[in-house]
């Protein structure tokens, strides 16, 4: 409210209307003028239908006034502000009236009312805090610039870049992510255009001279910059963008120069600048002829850099993460030192009874401010200065300090503090970056020393370990500790502290006293004395929450804590915590020094810098994440079965986080999938993670963090590696690399394939799997350009008809064949897999397989990346989805045979063209004859190529009906007859069985062998039916179950069937419902 008056009074309009606020197309800055809006009263007497139309007229009038005045004023002056339209907010020097006249004179525009569409720059000298905090809402993404920009531009007689003039309050000099990963970016030739490589100041002049062609070039990196913006900036590159005046181009080159030369730019500002350039009214119509191609090029670059700003974001992220270093260090440690454990089996590891607890001597050893001292040791000038480690040294930044040395700690600098605050406490604080190689080196040296002196080492972290020296009676622990410490200091030039105690707890507490660079021994008799004064908050495991709770009960020291009984503690704080408090306050700690435990899960999580624009960003990000996780799994030689995807989603009302690019206030979600076979295969991971991500149904722009965790780990045994790859290959889709290729067609195909047919045939299901990895939500115009080669699916390529392939090869400039050859070598492993064997058999006489094989390749024709062609058939296919099975493989040929001639032609005609050809040429009739002779063979064949047997109930009539009909067995034939008679309209087994009750079941005419087979067949089809129904329809199962029981009383056959099926039903019911069906 307050603000509204200010902004209006400054808007320079004599005819202010404060009566109403109808934000139809008018956005006012500072919001809400006229909260007491009464539209009906205020417009009762006016000729305007509503406020919107009023403002429209008013704006038009003001515009005309301005133009008329401008026409009078300008003329001699150079129109340097062409295309600039300013809005003045608040008090400025020079005043807004003066600014208005400047704009008039130099060809700019002046807006009295803020509108996102017409304003390009916001001019103001000062902003209230609330606007700074919520800059985006205030500026709507436009640049907020000081008035000096205009004055200086006039004096320079050319339009200066606004970036140096942006408001100080906003000019946060945080590094951009691009700066973070700068080396990579620099080496990117695409970016290193002549404009961008120069310094900002020179950049201006160069950009000015830049020809229009170069301006076109600069579109690309600029777009690339746009990618870096966070998710809020969603505007797509369109050809319209290129329709900009030269000034715009100039501006954007400036942006490039600024960005690349000067990484200190504030991201939002850039964003706004970009937006302003894209949104300029296309006054000059130099929509260059190459506009479109530029746009597509930009778009393709956009796609390539689709995640966030950096295609290698995930990789770089983990390269620069300290937590990641600590996390992965353990594996390194295990690998390095595991061998030494094997020889020396620890005798009493694990148990720690009370008697020998007294004899225990534990040394806890900890490097002093590890992350700092490792860096400082080589820099003598920093030796006694306050130093902290942080990934970015930026006085205004909000980066968190990860470790501080002791001089710095004396000032109160702590880990986890924002650099800004730390500098407030200690202005001379030196911030140093991580040096991960050095950390690794020192940690290795550290453990080398420890292992040399002691056999029982428990690594806690890269800089902290417990030694159990109880059985080294001949050595004084204190002497040992000082020897170790000295050795560490000599070798690593980092000081270590040691604590000695009877338990791990006491040793650890002792270290705290010993720090820095000292050692302390708490002997058994001194334990109580030591603990008496110890504050509860310093006990390990007592965090701030627990501490607060204790303090509420007036417990500050361990002595006070000891007065409370264990039961009371357990009652108040829970069983485990209570137990812990009780024993810790007495210095008891039952843990014993053990080797590094096997990790229970392996994963990777990124919660910083995660901003997505669309699904493709997510896809790419997930791919990278999966790669990382897969590498970690392989690094640990582990494979996992359960995959958990964790998502951090911005809380509804959470604004931009304080921490730059941080995750802010988030809701956490997680979902997991368990697969039957353990895997570390990146492609499986990708498929699973995409599926999991899809199941969240999130708005990708809200995602602030993603983590993938693999648990249920199993050691990757190289001996079963072969079978593993085969199985994982079988029930998964390795082909999901194919992300970009003609998404429209993909989405269509996903729908095309009926649900529940997932694992039907090797080929088809593979295809489907890889499609399903693609979320069907896709941006519309992706197929306007060729996907990058690395995204092509080799499987598909290899199966393309040669002429198509050569055509494709042409579009890729002949590189495709090379690629295929290369990949083929790699793929030899798949030669035992069904798909390849399918191809191999294709030409052989097995007709039913032939159909599968050929229809599969028929499917693949859809994938040809020529969008205009591929689209048409796929669209057609969608229409037929509901009616037609996916391919001929799902059509029962015997039915086809039974059909009247014209009907058959119709059915065949309903298939897309290429399929029809396949089917007619492949002579379904042949297959029919074959089927007549050996019906079971088909089943076998189907099973061989992965036909899950649930397909027996697929289709109308279901497959079993046909199979039974031609089985030659009278019982089975009877079944199918009954089905036709009664169950056609309602394909329920109960109907069939009910009818079967009234039939006469002859038994005994069949031979024993035949009976067995019949029983088996009937059981199979019953079981499948039950499997289908158990989830949703136990009523039907119950009905069938009872009918079957009654049938069993009449016929030997059904008796046997009942004997087999009954336990099966009960097991399944018990699995799903936790009980058994009651039998009357």
């Amino acid at each position, binding site marked *: 409210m307050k603000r509204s008056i200010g902004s209006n009074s400054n808007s320079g309009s004599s005819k202010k209307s404060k009566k109403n606020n109808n934000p139809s197309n008018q956005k006012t800055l500072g919001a809400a003028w006229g909260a007491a809006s009464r539209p009906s009263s205020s417009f009762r007497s006016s000729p305007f239908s509503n406020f919107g139309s009023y403002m429209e007229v008013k704006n038009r009038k003001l515009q005309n006034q301005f133009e008329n005045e401008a026409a009078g004023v300008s003329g001699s002056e150079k129109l340097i502000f062409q295309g600039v339209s300013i809005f003045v907010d608040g008090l400025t020097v020079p005043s807004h009236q003066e600014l208005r006249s400047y704009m008039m004179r130099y060809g700019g525009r002046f807006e009295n009312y803020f509108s996102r569409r017409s304003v390009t720059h916001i001019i103001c000298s000062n902003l209230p805090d609330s606007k700074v905090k919520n800059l985006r809402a205030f500026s709507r993404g436009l640049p907020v610039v000081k008035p000096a920009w205009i004055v200086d531009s006039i004096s320079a007689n050319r339009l200066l870049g606004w970036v140096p003039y942006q408001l100080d309050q906003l000019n946060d000099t945080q590094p951009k992510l691009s700066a973070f990963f700068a080396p990579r970016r620099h080496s990117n030739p695409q970016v290193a255009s002549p404009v961008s490589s120069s310094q900002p100041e020179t950049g201006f002049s160069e950009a000015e001279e830049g020809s229009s062609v170069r301006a076109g070039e600069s579109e690309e990196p600029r777009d690339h910059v746009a990618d870096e913006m966070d998710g809020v900036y969603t505007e797509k590159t369109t050809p319209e963008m290129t329709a900009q005046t030269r000034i715009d181009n100039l501006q954007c080159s400036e942006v490039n120069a600024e960005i690349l030369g000067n990484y200190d730019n504030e991201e939002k500002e850039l964003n706004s600048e970009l937006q302003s350039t894209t949104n300029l009214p296309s006054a000059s119509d130099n929509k260059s002829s190459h506009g479109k191609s530029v746009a597509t090029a930009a778009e393709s670059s956009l796609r390539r850099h689709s995640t966030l700003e950096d295609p290698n974001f995930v990789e770089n992220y983990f390269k620069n993460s300290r937590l990641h270093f600590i996390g992965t260090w353990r594996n390194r440690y295990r690998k390095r030192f595991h061998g030494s454990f094997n020889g020396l089996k620890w005798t009493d590891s694990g148990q720690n009874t009370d008697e020998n607890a007294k004899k225990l001597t534990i040394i806890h050893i900890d490097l002093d401010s590890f992350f700092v001292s490792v860096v400082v040791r080589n820099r003598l000038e920093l030796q006694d200065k306050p130093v902290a480690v942080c990934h970015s040294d930026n006085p205004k930044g909000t980066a968190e300090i990860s470790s501080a040395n002791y001089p710095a700690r004396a000032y109160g600098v702590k880990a986890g503090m924002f650099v800004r605050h730390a500098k407030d406490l200690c202005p001379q604080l030196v911030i140093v970056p991580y040096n991960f190689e050095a950390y690794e080196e020192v940690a290795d040296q550290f453990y080398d020393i420890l292992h040399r002196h002691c056999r029982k080492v428990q690594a806690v972290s890269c800089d902290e370990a417990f030694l159990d020296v109880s059985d080294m009676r001949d050595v004084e622990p204190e002497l040992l500790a000082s020897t170790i410490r000295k050795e560490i200091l000599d070798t690593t030039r980092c000081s270590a502290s040691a604590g000695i105690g009877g338990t791990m707890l006491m040793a650890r507490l002792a270290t705290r006293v010993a720090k820095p660079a000292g050692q302390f021994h708490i002997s058994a008799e001194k334990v109580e004395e030591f603990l008496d004064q110890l504050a509860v908050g310093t006990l390990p495991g007592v965090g701030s929450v627990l501490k607060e709770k204790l303090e509420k009960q007036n417990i500050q020291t361990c002595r006070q804590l000891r007065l409370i009984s264990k039961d009371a503690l357990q009652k108040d704080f829970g069983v485990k915590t209570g137990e812990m408090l009780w024993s810790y306050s007495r210095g008891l700690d039952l843990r014993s020094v053990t080797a590094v435990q096997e990790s229970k899960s392996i994963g990777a999580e990124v919660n910083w810098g995660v901003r997505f624009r669309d699904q493709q960003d997510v896809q790419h990000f997930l791919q990278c994440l999966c790669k990382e996780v897969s590498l970690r799994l392989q690094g640990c030689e582990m494979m996992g079965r359960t995959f958990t995807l964790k998502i951090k989603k911005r809380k509804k009302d959470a604004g931009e986080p304080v921490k730059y690019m941080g995750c802010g206030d988030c809701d956490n979600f997680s979902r997991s999938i368990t697969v039957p076979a353990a895997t570390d295969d990146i492609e499986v991971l990708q498929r699973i993670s995409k599926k999991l991500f899809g199941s969240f149904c999130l708005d990708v722009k809200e995602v602030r963090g993603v983590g993938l965790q693999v648990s249920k780990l199993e050691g990757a045994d190289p001996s079963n590696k072969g079978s593993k790859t085969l199985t994982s290959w079988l029930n998964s889709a390795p082909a999901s690399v194919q992300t970009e290729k003609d998404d429209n067609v993909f989405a269509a195909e996903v729908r095309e394939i009926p649900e529940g047919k997932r694992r039907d045939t090797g080929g088809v299901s593979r295809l489907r799997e890889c499609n399903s990895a693609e979320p069907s939500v896709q941006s519309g115009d992706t197929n306007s350009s060729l996907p990058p080669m690395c995204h092509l699916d080799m499987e598909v390529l290899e199966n393309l008809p040669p002429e198509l392939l050569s055509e494709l090869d042409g579009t890729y400039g002949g590189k495709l064949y090379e690629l295929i050859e290369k990949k083929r070598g790699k793929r030899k492993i798949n030669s035992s897999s069904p798909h390849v064997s399918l191809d191999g058999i294709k030409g052989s006489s097995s007709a039913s397989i032939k159909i599968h094989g050929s229809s599969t390749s028929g499917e693949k024709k859809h994938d040809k990346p020529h969008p205009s062609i591929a689209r048409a058939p796929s669209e057609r296919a969608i229409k037929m989805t509901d009616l037609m099975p996916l391919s001929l493989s799902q059509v029962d040929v015997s039915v086809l045979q039974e059909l009247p001639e014209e009907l058959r032609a119709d059915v065949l005609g309903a298939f897309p063209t290429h399929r029809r050809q396949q089917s007619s040429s492949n002579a379904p009739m042949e297959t029919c004859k074959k089927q007549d002779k050996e019906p079971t063979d088909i089943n076998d064949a189907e099973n061989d190529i992965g036909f899950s047997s649930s397909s027996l109930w697929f289709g109308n009539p279901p497959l079993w009906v046909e199979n039974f009909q031609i089985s030659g067995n009278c019982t089975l034939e009877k079944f199918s007859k009954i089905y036709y008679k009664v169950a056609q309209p309602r394909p329920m087994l109960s109907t069939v069985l009910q009818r079967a009750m009234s039939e006469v079941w002859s038994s005994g005419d069949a031979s024993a062998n035949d009976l067995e087979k019949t029983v088996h067949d009937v059981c199979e089809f019953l079981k499948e039916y039950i499997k289908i129904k158990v989830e*949703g*329809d136990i009523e*039907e199962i*119950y009905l069938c179950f009872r009918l079957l029981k009654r049938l069993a009383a009449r016929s030997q056959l059904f008796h046997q069937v009942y004997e087999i099926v009954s336990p099966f039903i009960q097991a399944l019911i018990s699995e799903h419902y936790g*009980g*058994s069906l*009651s039998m009357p």
Partner: protein
Amino acid sequence: MNMKKGDNPSGKVANTLVEFLEVAITMVVFLKGFYPSAAFERMRYMNVVVQRARHPELRDYIHFSASGLLPFIEKGLVERVAVIFFSNDNVPVERFIFKLTINPSSAASVEESQLEFRLRSFLVKLSASKSLVKPLPPNCRWEVTAYLRSLPEVGSSKEGELWIPTDTKQWMKPPVITPVKSLNSEPLCLQLYLEHPCLSETQPCQEAQ
């Protein structure tokens, strides 16, 4: 039983379902003969004759049990709703289980009349299921219990606070199930079945914590 306005399709289904549950629970209680039949009055719901409790407290209990589930059903948290009858010593003797799954993705396409038509078959079947139920022991009581897929966040909704965790005694052995009616059509999968203690069930005990 006035219709609430569901703002989203799955809410619509949930609303219908909750309404149906209210009727069905009443029917179950009536079927069991828990109260004298004079305690109920004949009503028409979905064009089927159903019973409604006359006593306001009973009616309110059933109504609020059902409508209290609405937020959880909407979120897809509710897995089963059970009407449990207890014997004198608080041991369940019979449980009517409504097992439900709502598929929100296809909820939009469903037609209400279609859903009602299917739900009606439940009520018809239920009114004819007297033979399935066992006679009640003397001095028994009953309650409505909902089994959630996961515990809702504490204080997530006011309605949630009305529900309390239950320490209902469990049977030692898996129960015997008698299906009554199943409905499996998108977006709703609803099954009603009875659970009775296993015949060899001897001494039920408290569920292990």
